[in-house]
């Protein structure tokens, strides 16, 4: 059985929500919107995600990406395209 991870991204802000909810986000390591963290698939982390399920987007991935790799993901493709006018 290969280890897998939850890829958790904070989608909605927790401003104005109870201290408990914000505490869970802090425990998950989520500080600001669209921040992504990885946690192993375990009941402990699943329970924490369940507490903030309205605020996050979750997917299951094979391995945890490093901050550098996450940054590479966001980098737009280099170079440019030449767009031609559509022949009429």
């Amino acid at each position: 059985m290969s280890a897998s991870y939850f890829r958790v991204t904070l989608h909605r802000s927790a401003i104005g929500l109870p201290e408990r909810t914000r505490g869970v986000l802090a425990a998950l390591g989520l500080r600001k919107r669209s921040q992504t963290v990885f946690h192993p698939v375990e009941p402990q982390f699943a329970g924490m995600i369940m507490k903030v399920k309205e605020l996050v987007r979750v997917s299951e991935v094979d391995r945890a990406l490093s901050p550098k790799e996450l940054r590479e993901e966001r980098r737009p493709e280099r170079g440019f395209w030449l767009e031609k006018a559509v022949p009429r």
Partner: protein
Amino acid sequence: MFGAFRFTNPLSGGLLWKTPWRLSRFQKTRQRRRLRAVDSVVATIDAALAKQGQTLTALDTWKEKMPTEAEMLPKDKYTIFDRKEKRYRKGIHKLPKWTRVSQRLNPLDTKRRSVGVAGRYSTLRIVQSLRGEADVNESAWGPMGGLPRRLGDFVQYCNSSFRLL
């Protein structure tokens, strides 16, 4: 009467809140999208844990109690029970932080209790019976002529009968 100093509600009373009594078409769309987003998070966690052979009480409770977006009645998606309100319902947008909390189940209100089908059973029980989890007495489904075979039939029936009330 006219001009800059006319006698309007905000001028005479000071503060006037204009919160519409119901959601707009677009608010409803976004509400459904949010409900489905929560469903997908739950489904992801469930699938991931099932692969590992693990269980989680919170997850099991959620799956047992909470209807998914498709299983919910429009009434429960967009309105919320309120004992002080006329006909016991108000728009869900009156609920504080309504876009970031899960509010899916409501108590039966008196109007609904007077309808044969949904009267005797909560939406939850009906959904459970359609999933084949709960045992519901067939004779109680008089107005529909027997148990609904598909969830869609039930939702359609409820919508038409609630609108008549």
